[in-house]
């Protein structure tokens, strides 16, 4: 008798949450929590967590199911399949890396569960015409095009490329070369380097001899600092250093004021942009995690908000897809609309920002309508 009572009470307790209120909407979140990309993954985790917290405070019932892909496309795909088949989520946010996002995107139409990619840059992801794949951030080609349009007014004539021999480096430079050709820039040097080497001086000396107006750089974390140190050492002074994301947009790089001053870089988001709530988001993030939010955090925050708000008005993945396709938003990432244009499907035509490091701080300098400061050109030591 006693046993029976206990089991009845236990069953009742298990069922209680279901009786209390309507079942919360289930959303999946695939991210690189471990592995090589874990440092950036943490930013995404924090941004998404802030969004969920705010939405819950507003009374939206949401259950977030988090999956870790460790930066590996195989795990990302397994995570997506688990989320849609076992957990029954109606929408998925993620994955972070281009490799993972690209693989998961290729299966989204098969399972018919919408995928919202917050921060992966590879163009292909939204170029294959997948109906269930949406992307919030600007794709890779915008990195170089926005940087070049920022300096176009100053009429530079020549350009040199210095970049890491990785997928990201090679593909970013390829689109940069196309954009440079459109602007009529002449390529005077092209230096691809192996990462992690202690000495880049010979390559930089060659670039110096070519005397380019612009130097376009693609490097990861610490390589960026090493390259710029050695560039200063050998006295490399172009009219502008253009850093395409990654190593040139970290706080660690900016802090090296001696070498980072006046370096120009492209980013998806800054905290001094005049999009609604951006500054406030940065302040709250800083207070909560005691560090500055990266653009990844802002992208994850906005993606999670858009996904949950739209999902709360839909019952099925099909309704959610229609909601994402039809909706438009205006938040910390500026105006968002998933549109079909120049080969892209469900791609938010996100205006990227150009920032310049001035005395150790990133300042938004382009496009003019989003920025308070003006680009300093030419570069001086």
């Amino acid at each position, binding site marked *: 008798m006693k046993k029976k009572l206990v089991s009845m009470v236990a069953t009742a307790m298990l069922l209680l949450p279901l009786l209390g209120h309507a079942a919360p909407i289930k959303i999946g979140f695939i991210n690189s929590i471990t592995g090589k990309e874990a440092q950036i993954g943490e930013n995404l985790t924090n941004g998404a967590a802030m969004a969920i917290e705010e939405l819950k405070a507003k009374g939206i019932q949401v259950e977030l199911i988090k999956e870790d892909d460790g930066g590996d496309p195989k795990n990302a795909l397994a995570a997506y399949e688990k989320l849609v088949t076992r957990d029954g989520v109606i929408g998925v946010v993620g994955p972070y890396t281009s490799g993972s996002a690209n693989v998961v995107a290729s299966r989204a139409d098969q399972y018919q569960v919408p995928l919202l990619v917050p921060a992966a840059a590879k163009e292909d992801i939204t170029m294959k015409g997948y109906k269930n794949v949406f992307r919030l951030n600007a794709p890779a080609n915008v990195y170089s095009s926005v940087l070049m349009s920022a300096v176009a007014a100053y009429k530079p004539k020549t350009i040199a490329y210095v970049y890491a021999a990785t997928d990201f480096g090679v593909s970013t430079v390829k689109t940069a070369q196309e954009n440079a050709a459109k602007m009529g820039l002449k390529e005077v040097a092209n230096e691809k380097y192996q990462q992690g080497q202690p*000495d880049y*001086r010979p390559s930089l*000396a060659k670039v110096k*001899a070519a005397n380019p107006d612009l130097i376009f750089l693609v490097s990861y974390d*610490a390589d960026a600092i090493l390259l710029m140190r050695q560039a200063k050492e*050998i006295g490399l002074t172009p009219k502008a250093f253009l850093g395409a994301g990654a190593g040139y947009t970290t706080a660690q790089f900016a802090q090296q004021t001696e*070498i980072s001053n006046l370096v120009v870089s492209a980013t998806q988001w800054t905290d001094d942009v005049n999009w609604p709530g951006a500054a406030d988001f940065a302040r709250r993030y800083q207070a909560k995690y005691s560090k500055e939010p990266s653009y990844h955090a802002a992208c994850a925050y906005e993606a999670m908000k858009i996904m949950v708000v739209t999902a709360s008005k839909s019952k099925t993945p099909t309704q959610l897809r229609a909601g994402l396709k039809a909706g438009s938003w205006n938040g910390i990432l500026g105006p968002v609309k998933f549109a079909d244009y120049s080969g892209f499907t469900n791609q938010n035509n996100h205006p990227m920002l150009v920032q310049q490091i001035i005395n150790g701080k990133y300042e938004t300098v382009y496009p003019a309508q989003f920025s308070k400061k003006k680009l300093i050109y030419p570069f001086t030591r």
Partner: protein
Amino acid sequence: MFFLQSLLSGILTGGVYALAGIGMSLVFGVMNISNFAHGDLMMLGMYLAYFAFTLLHIDPYLSLLLIIPTAFLFGFIIEKLFIHRIINHPHQNQILLTIGLGLIMSNSALLAFTSDPKILTTTYSSSAFHFFGGISLSVPLLLSFVITCGIIGVLFFFLSKSTTGLALWATSQNREAAQLMGINVAKMSAIAFGLGTALAATAGALIAPTYYIHPMAGHTFLLKAFTICVLGGLGSVIGAGVGGVIIGVVESMASTYLSSDWKDVVVFIIFLAVLLLRPQGLFGKKGEQ
């Protein structure tokens, strides 16, 4: 100008490679062990220099006075605790042990210091001496090179003049004969491993101001140190010194005249050529393995 610039910067970078190679070669010479933890010992040297600079505010080059004895002691203890147990065992056991020790070191560093690369920024980190014709020499690299030359000089003097040095030299020439002559070869092994560790840590500390500090940073240099040792002749201190400078210059020349993408290819073509034409290495004695 290109030629001179890349020659000079190659020689300076090669100096630090040489120091890493000499430590490895010394251990091999005396103990007949290939130390695959050598790169990780270098990494520990980098962190020692970093923390001496950030916590104790000691200049990274001055901190060598602390790092060298600490590293020597660390190496001495490691040898007494682990390495000496496998000294007469087959090579694969020795390789597995040193790889294992290296993995423990790099992963402990990963746990303790995280995977964020650390940057050691001194007031002279990105300064250079400029000469006529647009040639520039990095101040920290030049300092490292001068210190490397000094250390190699002292080491050479120690090996050829002091009693302990001569005993080390004898052990490296013939372990059994040295033992028969009354040399304590077990002690010599521990001293050699301590010296090798101290040299690795010194190389790490010397490169720290011009490189970045990361738990896996040693791996880049392990392969280089190994190449240098084989190129110069395993066990030959002079060979490792010359080998280091050769690798530095070849890398620099390859980046200047081909592409930085190709420099490893050129290094390994030369490496293979040396192995084919002179299997004992440039300064190795004929008949050694």
